[in-house]
């Protein structure tokens, strides 16, 4: 008997919540009747990757504010870098807000969790930062404005090899991004005749890598390549590189390009980052005007993702499907470089080297 | 002979709680262990019911060496015991307590999934009448008074299938009226043929109840015999009662 009561209580509560939910959807359907196209932005705004998440959100918002389309409404969702939260946020935006396209998520795991939902509901998902090779094959509606790990990995290996290094040490975060990129660099660099003399990892978000660095120092590499995607770890480890006294030249991936590391002052001078092609001067100006800081990593990519959606809408697309079709057709020079989506929704992207000079990120000319 | 302990030793760290304790309990008799606090009575009880493993010595129950058995295995062989500080199952009802005591099949997970629970009600009624606990069966243990809990604990001990009933200070802290009725219950049980072993430090309570007494001190049995023999044993009197002055000799043990 008590089970029965429990079930009844449960159903009543669910019924109530259900009506609340339906009321919400009705409202949004009214919105669509008035020709509003809803676009979402999602990413980690709390948790270890929040700094990147907020940068990407700012970048995308910049594009929407500029375009100022009367028929576009923007909603944001926090995904805390968690896969379940990403799936929930995606579902919420799809059915409550009735979005047609979303800029997000950053972490590959979150993008991969949200992708099936976007795909099934015919909603475009453009990630500004997920570089996992798995994202390429996640579906027709899944795009990204950042080239995949293979692109950056090959570029990094090539650069290091061209610079004449033969002994390379790798230090990377033990997550999807770090492992993915490290594997490709290792393969490529050994193919080019180099040797990986140290292969060390650390937990994302940890701030003590001294022994990893000690092992690296002991291996006497000519260059050290760092893959990091949480700012606190980036700062901590660059600092410890100096403190431990590693003589090797320090290189790093995209994730190191975050304003916080500049606060380390002299010790990060000369750190070289393999960055996807730099944001255009124009974008840099706009971003600095709006937010008062240099655009951090992924801001330009998010801006371009948003721009691509805006262009599709301006071209008359109103549904996710139409936006998707428009995206495969379009080609433009965005803030992060030339954007043309291939059949996987990936961009080719160009890479450049960015060096820290006099406390600022300076793009090196090819 | 239902129970016999031979040369039990047990120490905790440096403290020797039991040092070579031996005694036997006869069938259909009430046997008491008396002795001052700290003499090792309760430790001995815990050793017999295997809550504590002895360092050395053997325990025989019903002619079988049970020294190496686990506590619950021994209990299944037919030892039932109560505790001095009654700790029941706070969140269970009287009925559930007695069902647990009576049932021998409730440990099976799958076969119990769809069983209705009300099977032992006759036996439950019977035990409740024996101990004279006049409370609705659905009362939770937390809602009972101390005396009622003592009775429920006794009822559980009786309900559990057993051939030896071990009671750890059954009347500690209860009022005189309840004390008398517990004494009567024990007599009644003995008349039905129960073998009972009890710990008590109140000599008056055991003198006209039990058949045989063991006196323990400092982890050893120092004397044994019928109540009369113990009362008149000069060794016991001299060594223990004598120390306490002339009056209130027995009370000083409490």
């Amino acid at each position, binding site marked *: 008997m008590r089970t029965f009561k429990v079930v009844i209580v449960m159903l009543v509560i669910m019924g109530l919540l259900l009506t609340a939910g339906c009321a919400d959807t009705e409202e949004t359907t009214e919105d669509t009747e008035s020709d509003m196209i809803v676009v979402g932005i999602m990413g980690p*705004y*709390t*948790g*270890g990757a*929040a*700094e990147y*998440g*907020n940068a990407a959100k700012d970048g995308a918002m910049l594009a929407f504010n500029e375009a100022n389309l009367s028929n576009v409404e923007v909603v944001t969702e926090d995904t805390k870098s968690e896969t379940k939260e990403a799936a929930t946020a995606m579902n919420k935006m799809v059915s409550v807000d009735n979005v047609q396209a979303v800029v997000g998520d950053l972490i590959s795991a979150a993008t991969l969790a949200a992708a099936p939902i976007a795909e099934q509901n015919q909603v475009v998902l453009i990630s500004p930062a997920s570089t996992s090779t798995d994202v390429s094959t996640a579906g027709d509606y899944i795009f990204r404005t950042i080239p995949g790990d293979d692109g950056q990995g090959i570029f990094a290996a090539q650069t290091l090899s061209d610079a004449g290094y033969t002994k390379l040490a790798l230090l990377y975060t*033990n997550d999807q991004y770090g492992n993915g990129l490290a594997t490709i660099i290792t393969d490529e660099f050994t193919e080019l005749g180099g040797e990986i003399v140290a*292969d*060390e*990892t*650390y*937990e994302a*978000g*940890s*701030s*003590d890598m*001294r*022994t*990893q660095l*000690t*092992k690296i*120092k*002991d291996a*006497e590499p000519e260059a050290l390549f760092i893959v990091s995607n949480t*700012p*606190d770890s*980036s*700062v*901590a480890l660059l*600092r410890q590189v*100096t*403190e*431990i*006294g590693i003589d090797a030249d320090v290189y790093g991936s995209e994730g190191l390009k*975050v*304003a*916080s590391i500049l*606060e*380390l*002052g*002299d*010790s990060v001078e000369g750190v070289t980052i393999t960055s996807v092609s730099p944001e255009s001067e124009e974008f840099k100006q706009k971003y600095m005007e709006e937010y008062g800081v240099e655009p951090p990593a992924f801001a330009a990519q998010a801006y371009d993702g948003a721009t691509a959606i805006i262009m599709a809408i301006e071209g008359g697309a109103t549904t996710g499907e139409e936006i998707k079709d428009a995206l495969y057709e379009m080609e433009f020079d965005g803030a992060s470089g030339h954007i043309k989506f291939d059949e996987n929704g990936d961009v080719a992207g160009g890479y450049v080297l960015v060096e820290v000079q006099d406390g600022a990120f300076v793009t090196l000319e090819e | 002979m239902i129970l016999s302990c031979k040369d039990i030793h047990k120490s905790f760290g440096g403290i020797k709680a039991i040092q070579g304790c031996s005694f036997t309990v006869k069938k259909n008799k009430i046997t008491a262990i008396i002795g001052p606090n700290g003499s090792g009575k309760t430790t001995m009880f815990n050793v017999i019911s295997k*809550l*504590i*493993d002895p360092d050395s010595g053997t325990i025989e129950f019903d002619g079988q060496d049970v020294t190496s058995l686990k506590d619950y295995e021994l209990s299944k062989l037919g030892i039932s015991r109560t505790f001095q500080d009654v700790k029941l199952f706070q969140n269970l009802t009287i009925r559930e307590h007695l069902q647990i005591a009576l049932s021998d099949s409730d440990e099976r997970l799958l076969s119990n999934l769809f069983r209705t629970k009300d099977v032992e009600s006759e036996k439950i009624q019977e035990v409740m009448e024996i101990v004279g606990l006049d409370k609705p069966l659905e009362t939770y243990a937390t809602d009972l008074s101390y005396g009622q809990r003592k009775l429920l604990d006794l009822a559980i001990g009786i309900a559990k299938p057993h051939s030896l009933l071990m009671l750890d200070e059954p009347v500690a802290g209860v009022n005189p009226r309840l004390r008398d009725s517990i004494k009567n219950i024990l007599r009644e049980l003995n008349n039905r043929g129960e073998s009972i072993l009890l710990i008590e430090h109140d000599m008056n309570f055991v003198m006209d109840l039990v058949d045989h007494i063991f006196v323990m001190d400092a982890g050893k049995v120092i004397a044994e015999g019928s109540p009369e023999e113990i009362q008149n044993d000069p060794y016991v009197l001299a060594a223990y009662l004598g120390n306490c002055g002339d009056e209130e000799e027995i009370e000083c043990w409490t």
Partner: protein
Amino acid sequence: MKNEIKTSLGGKTIALLAQSIINGLITGSIYALVASGYSLIYSTNNFMHFAHGISVVAAGYMVYWLFSLVGIPFYVTCIITVILSAIFGLAMYRLIYLPLQKKGASNVILLIASIGILTFFQNVIQIAFGSGVKLVGYIEVSKGITFAGVTMTLLQIVILIISLIIFILLYQFMQKTKTGRNMRAVSNNSELASIVGINHIRISDISFLIGSALAGVAGILVALEQNLSPFMGTNLMIKGFTGAVIGGINYVPGSIVGSFLLGMAENLGILVLPSGYKDAIAFSMLFLFLLFKPNGILGKKEGRFDK
């Protein structure tokens, strides 16, 4: 030249080993600062105060705010921070834990409440200071001092010395003062302690005050040695907790020893194993210690049922 200095030692060099031991000591001292306050609070209150991690983070941000933003002299900042941390800890006890205890909440409930507090303040800090990494910048980052092949920064030496001084003071306090003895009495046997007239709430007050003041010191040193982000509290707490358990969570000197041991084990362990196993080493130690030596290295015997 370099190759001459190196002496082979199972494929590793002595310099590498020595440096790793030093790394272990530095890591251990940070863990120990977190663990000592944590286990002080645990020993007298017997519940897991996971919000201790946020006391450390809050102290770090306080330094950042007072010193880097407001511009109060550094030593004054430190004093204010330690005092405010102590008050912060006391407030948590008085406003959250004590009312819950008075309503008969069990220790598990208090654990959940402490996680709630941790989450709340993490987010408040993020709202106030943003999600970015903050550096206090009191000390310029530079290459450490190399001595006999081992590199250490001045700050790290200072941290080690400060931790040692604090641990000695703490030990003296626990052993020599009346309050300290009362605290030990409560942690040994709280029932008996209340029978002999020790006021449990007062002892808890003091343990939260001192424990959180220690968190304040830890926060200052973490802010100087590493950097600040709103979400670092969880990580610090997990490692501090692990160190405390290994050494004996109920006994402050034990938890300090355990933390150093943990720091050493992590750093020496990854000389042999791939560095991805760093956390795995810590957690396996935690698990194995609880199974086979639940009272830790120095803790009092109480983790297991007596048999």
